[in-house]
């Protein structure tokens, strides 16, 4: 069984009588340790997909399984716990708490995990060392550059040692060079054995990952790297693209 399994997932919004299918009958597996990018044009449903994969949102139809947990049946608190222990998020707009300093921001997930104060501090420092920000502990987010803020966010995502890291346009607000530094970090995380899922509309960034899932109008048009093409589980995912590839 794959780490993440989506079966016939749809997300439908109703806006003034009009029906918006942000996701339309998506089925998808992501295995443990994979480095995946989700790519597609603006409004295609990438973020929606990521939110559902990351237990931030629940589908209108279909089933989602994360590490054996039936997401659509879980309570809000159970999902919070899953996000806390198994998932780390990195957002385009960093999403740090402005009133907390760098260490406190990184400690935040551990507070909800119930980690003791001293251990919290220790783990936060480790995570910050890893993103090379061990020297800016007492700064507020507003006193950091965009790249630094994003590194703090990555440290925060890592600090509870989650199995899966989601990143929604993590380089979208950064210059090319800084973006590359951040991408290198993700590559390293993947090499450490974590499952990393990168959302982007930029093909150059998507090119970094071995597997790319392309989304258009809420449907999957997966472009599969040659060396993964033969895997059974991809044949099993009944997407139109896969069907075409199989034919």
């Amino acid at each position: 069984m794959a780490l993440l399994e989506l079966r016939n997932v749809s997300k439908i919004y109703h806006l003034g009588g009009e029906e918006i299918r942000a996701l339309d009958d998506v089925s998808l597996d992501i295995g443990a340790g994979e480095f995946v990018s989700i790519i597609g044009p603006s409004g295609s449903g990438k973020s929606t997909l990521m939110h559902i994969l990351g237990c931030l949102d629940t589908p209108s139809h279909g089933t989602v399984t994360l590490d054996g947990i039936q997401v659509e049946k879980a309570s809000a608190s159970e999902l919070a716990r899953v996000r806390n222990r198994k998932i780390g998020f990195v957002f385009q707009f960093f999403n740090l708490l402005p009133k907390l300093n760098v260490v406190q921001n990184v400690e935040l997930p551990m507070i909800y995990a119930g980690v003791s104060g001293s251990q919290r501090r220790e783990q936060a420092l480790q995570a910050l060392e890893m993103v090379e920000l061990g020297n800016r502990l007492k700064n507020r987010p507003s006193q950091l550059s965009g790249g630094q803020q994003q590194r703090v966010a990555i440290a925060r995502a890592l600090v509870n040692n989650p199995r899966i890291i989601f990143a929604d346009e993590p380089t979208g607000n950064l210059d090319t060079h800084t973006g590359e530094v951040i991408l290198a970090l993700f590559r390293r995380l993947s090499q450490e054995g974590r499952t990393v899922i990168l959302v982007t509309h930029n093909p150059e960034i998507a090119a970094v990952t071995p597997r790319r899932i392309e989304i258009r109008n809420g449907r999957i048009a997966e472009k599969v790297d040659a060396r993964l093409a033969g895997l059974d589980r991809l044949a099993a995912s009944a997407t139109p693209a896969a069907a075409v590839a199989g034919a």
Partner: protein
Amino acid sequence: MIILNSIVIGLKEIWAHKVRSLLTMMGIILGVTSLVGMAAIIKGMENGMKEAMIAMGGVDKVLTRDQQVPAWQDHLADQAPGITLVDVHALKRSAPLIRLVSPEMSLDDVTISRGDKRSDYSECVGVWPSVLEMNLHTLEHGRFFNDLDEEQARPVVVIGTGIRDELFGKPSEVGREIVPLGETIQIDGQPFVIVGMFQEYIGEQEAKERARAKLEAAQGTSKAAAGPKRQRGWGRRGGWAFWRKNYTIYMPLNTAWVRFRSAGRGTGIPDPRLTDMDIKVADFGRMEDAIQQARNVMLLTHQGIEDFTFETQENQIENINKQIRNARMSGGFIAGISLLVGGIGIMNIMLASINERVREIGICKAVGATGPNIFLQILIESAVIAVVGGLMGLVVSELFVELIGVLTPSQNTPMITREAEAVAVGFSALVGVIAGILPAIKAARFSPIEALRYE
């Protein structure tokens, strides 16, 4: 952990919006001030009452007073004998429920003098030795009257320290304590020899202050040198009951009668009536019975004319208790309203605050905060605002009570009690928690994804 963290966040929120927070806390501050202030005033009243009660002779003392004869006995008014020694003897003989009887003959408007010094105020009374136990006097120097003094109507007096202060000088002014035994003073021009002096009666408050002043003097602090401590109203804050007690001049009852009343001051007719006859009951639990017994005995000696009445200290206590209840009610009412208004203010500000922080709450949820986590967090923040307001209220009430003390000096110096403070802060915390419930529920229910998208 979350609790501690939420407290810190709550304090930061207050600090981040100082003016807004202060305005929000106004209701709580006011509520706490009125709660603590009112409790302090009541405590002061209680203290004053208790001390005064003891200074005046304790709760088991009953005053017998002259009263107008009832309307249906109007035609007998001329024959009303008034309270006399006949009653005293009758009670002593026939009323076993009465333990102590103390006849008094007050001399109003007498002039107390010694040389060119005079005391403008005095409580000059002719008494029996039973007055000592009746009014809870402590004789510190000399002796009290004996039977010979009484029988021969000797011109002797026992005085309080207030009279000594007026006629011989205060210890604080002359530098040493004068005990004027054997000295002669003039009462309306008649010479009297001082044979005894009572101890100085002071209230608890004053005793404390003096002890402190003494300590400071011993430590050589400069305050003592700055002159006498503030004196207020009735001389000092020890209370009028003590003050009056110190201005006592007792002489034998017979002396008062022979030297001042038998000549019939004013009317020319000798006046055998006592001005007061105080009694003490044998058993406090049988107060009613004792009074009934005394009434029966006295109706006999007064030939059925009810020209007297009894006044227990209990009546007074009841009166004061009623006042205290009223004060408590109105204080509680004001405090209740203020706390309610404060609570609504806090709820309002918390709603505004979570609306400002939708995104932050979304971030917390994204990294793993559960609904109950957020609920608790907001609730604690709300309680923190209230408690900080409550603590500020304590400071304000401290100033308030000090102000009352300065503005209306009296025997009832308001006293802040720890209990009242604890209750007040507890109440503000409660108000904060209750006010926080609605905003907390609202925040807990935010969907993480909508909160993250919120602009």
